[in-house]
């Protein structure tokens, strides 16, 4: 028995570096071709449209926006990936970050602390709320065997309800057409950084938080005992149990960590741009995170590229409107990319295995006597 298809696309098994690099490039190429066909069918100039998009997307201002989008996407995808690596499908990242953002914004508006403490407290509150909300699903699964897919989807709906109530009835203040929490004081804000030269558009200061989260994810998973237990549970629950891994605890911990990470998703926007939680607070990022986690094969580097690509497509789509082309074309492209990445990873993996075997046979045929190859495994 070799690795299953699901193991590979959920990133539970390692693929060779070659596959990891080639597959996404092919996939993007493929997605580009299909998108072109769609453009052509809908009667739009293919080449011009793509050039316009790339042109616009690579303006300094656009690039800064790409990085900002990618920052949030990255956090969301990592939150999802933590679950995926253990076979947990945390569909509830969406509800977790929205609730976390709202409570954190309200707390931030209500307390006054000195500058360095303020954002830290707000971020901690967000993580705790996210963790708690995800933890409910974890505890339900560990104690009652409730599928986390079902419970997190329901918790999303409940989060929407609770969020609406809290915003409209408790913490919100009417501001024109909008309802928002009290604006965060100056001390709570995290200044943007001029990462991209040639534009006044700042990049979120919490861009660095995303990088830190990526590193932490890698270290936790690959260097720490906890991560070993987590991956072992994801690969074979029965072997994990026999080896002394407390799977129930692992489920709860994994959901807590996933939820805490989800809590961070809204922070770059809250602390770096909007300074309040309002009706326009971006929703749906949790679902985008699922797509990006798959695109990046639940690997911290892969997810970074996937998040940037996604952000780029998002930003460059805004120009399409000006050219009277439906920006939804980009949504098609994003969906196609995920789909074709899954397919090409699989194809590249198989091709690679065959090529490897052909290589071995060539080498053996070439210098059968010279090479000290192990034969029949007993040398």
């Amino acid at each position: 028995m070799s690795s299953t298809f699901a193991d590979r696309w959920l990133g539970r098994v390692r693929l060779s570096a070659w596959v990891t690099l080639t597959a996404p490039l092919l996939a993007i190429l493929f997605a580009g071709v299909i998108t072109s066909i769609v453009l052509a069918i809908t009667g739009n100039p293919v080449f011009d449209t793509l050039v316009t998009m790339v042109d616009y997307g690579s303006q300094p201002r656009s690039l800064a926006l790409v990085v900002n989008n990618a920052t949030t996407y990255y956090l969301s995808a990592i939150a999802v990936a933590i679950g995926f690596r253990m076979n947990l499908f945390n569909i509830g990242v969406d509800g977790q970050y929205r609730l976390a953002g709202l409570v954190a914004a309200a707390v931030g508006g209500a307390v006054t602390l000195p500058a360095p403490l303020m954002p830290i407290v707000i971020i901690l509150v967000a993580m705790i709320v996210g963790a708690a909300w995800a933890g409910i699903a974890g505890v339900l699964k560990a104690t009652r065997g409730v599928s986390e897919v079902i419970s997190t989807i329901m918790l999303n709906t409940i989060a929407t309800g609770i969020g609406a109530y809290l915003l409209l009835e408790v913490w919100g203040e009417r501001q024109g057409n909008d309802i928002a929490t009290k604006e965060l004081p100056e001390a709570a804000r995290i200044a943007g950084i001029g990462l991209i030269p040639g534009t006044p558009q700042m990049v979120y200061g919490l861009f660095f938080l995303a990088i830190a989260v990526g590193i932490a994810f890698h270290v936790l998973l690959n260097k720490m005992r906890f991560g070993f237990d987590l991956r072992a549970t994801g690969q074979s629950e029965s072997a994990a149990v026999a080896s002394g891994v407390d799977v129930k605890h692992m489920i709860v911990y994994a959901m807590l960590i996933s939820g805490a990470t989800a809590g961070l998703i809204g922070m770059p926007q809250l602390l770096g741009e909007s300074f309040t939680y309002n009706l326009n607070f971006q929703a749906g990022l949790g679902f985008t995170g699922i797509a990006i986690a798959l695109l990046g094969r639940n690997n911290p580097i892969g997810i970074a590229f996937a998040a940037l690509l996604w952000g780029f497509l998002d930003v460059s789509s805004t120009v399409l409107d000006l050219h009277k082309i439906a920006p939804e074309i980009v949504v098609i492209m994003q969906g196609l990319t995920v789909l074709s990445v899954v397919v090409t990873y699989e194809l590249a993996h198989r091709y690679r295995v065959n090529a490897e075997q052909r290589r071995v046979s060539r080498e053996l045929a070439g210098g059968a006597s010279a090479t000290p190859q192990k034969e029949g495994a007993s040398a």
Partner: protein
Amino acid sequence: MITTGPLGTLTQEASISTETTVSEVAVQLEGITKRFPGVVANRDISLTVQKGHIHAIVGENGAGKSTLMKILYGMQRPDEGEIRVNGSPVTFHTPGDAISAGIGMVHQHFMLADNLTVLENVILGSEPRKGGLALDFAAARTKIREISDAYGLGIDPDVLVEDIGVGTRQRVEILKVLYRGARILILDEPTAVLVPHEVDELFENLHGLVREGITIIFISHHLDEVLKVADAITVIRRGTTVAEVDPVSVTARQLAELMVGSELPSPETRESTVTDVVALQVTGLTIGAEGERKVLDDVTLTIHKGEVLGIAGVEGNGQAELVEAIMGIRPSTGTITLAGEEITSWTTLRRREAGIGYIPEDRHRHGLLLEAPLWENRILGHMKEKVNVRGWWINRRGARADTQRIVEQYDVRTPGIDVLASALSGGNQQKLIVGREMSGEPKLLIAAHPTRGVDVGAQAAIWDHLRTARAAGLAVLLISADLDELIGLSDWLKVIHRGTLVAEFDPATVTPEQLGSAMTGAGEEA
């Protein structure tokens, strides 16, 4: 997909036999070569199997037996070579192709879904349709009954697979391939999990199949049974065929020498090393709620330092549950003490930390992460050991070095410690597990079938390791289907039947026959 019933193809065969001169040959493999990264699993192998024969394939662990059979079954493509079935050349891309050509395979590691019934397992993948849409369970059930009766397999289609013992599971696997119309049956180590009388039953079944014109290819490490049942034997060594022997003209010893170039081992324990220090004390261990039949009923046993206690029994009589209760994997009532300390309420991890090594009976489900490299598998179950971790951190260097040590000491045949566990042959996976569980000087070793699937040479080596550790004070709870192993290695034997210990024997005086009858519940106290 479904061809005619088991008895319906006789006429068709007769017509083939008049056609060609090689009519008697069911399978012919010629010049088969298969390479994996770093390993040549099969090198220019040729094999001829006569129709209606039971053809045995023997060879060391990693010799390439399973690989050859997977090639014949279309699971793997050969790099070179030709396959002929009933005289005509074939190319298989998938097992589906092989099945259409009348070839079926039962794998070394069972592939049944526990939570489905026998019926569901059998039809999985070739579901009969009523009017093209609805599943036709009734037809399938009838057909299963027919096949079962025709060959005396005695299978009830409506029980859950998790409720049946290994012997029956084995027969379900066989039925599954017959159901798909197989006329050529490949059995990869079918007897590894069976106790002697189940082996006899299986062989009776096989003879029944052969009488119906079915051809059987089977792999086994038990040379005595190979000699008893096979019509022809092929010996594979380091990926190539080294001999075709006639079972009537060789002894088991000669066969072993052909395979590994070494003599047959004997599991005899020499001087006793039993001390009077109690290592493990199990008292009143019970599993199963009041009222219903208990899977384990009031089991009490003591193992001293330096002692091997053997548990004999037909699989499915509570051995697995006993082991899992001692490991803390399965809830139970009663008390367990390790070296004087009560561990009844401890977690599995804590028990392992306290010095219990565990060789599980199902290596794929409980012993390995198949998709992880060997060195990560070294860590599995030993997540608190110094060589593997430092505090919260994985000690990559230490784990790798120790894996290398195990590979060398236990002769695990592998191109390296970075290959995935799934790339090892079954016997080599087992050696890795044994090596791992013997690491870190355990106080107690729970060994369920420690040499299952291991070749005779490696078996001797593992027995030696066990004896050395026992002399140093290791206590061992040994569960095995191999009576020679039980009698040869144990200092004391207990027989388990329907969840209770029903008899005990001194291995110095007991005969396999006495043990065998006690295991079926017929024996009296000795």
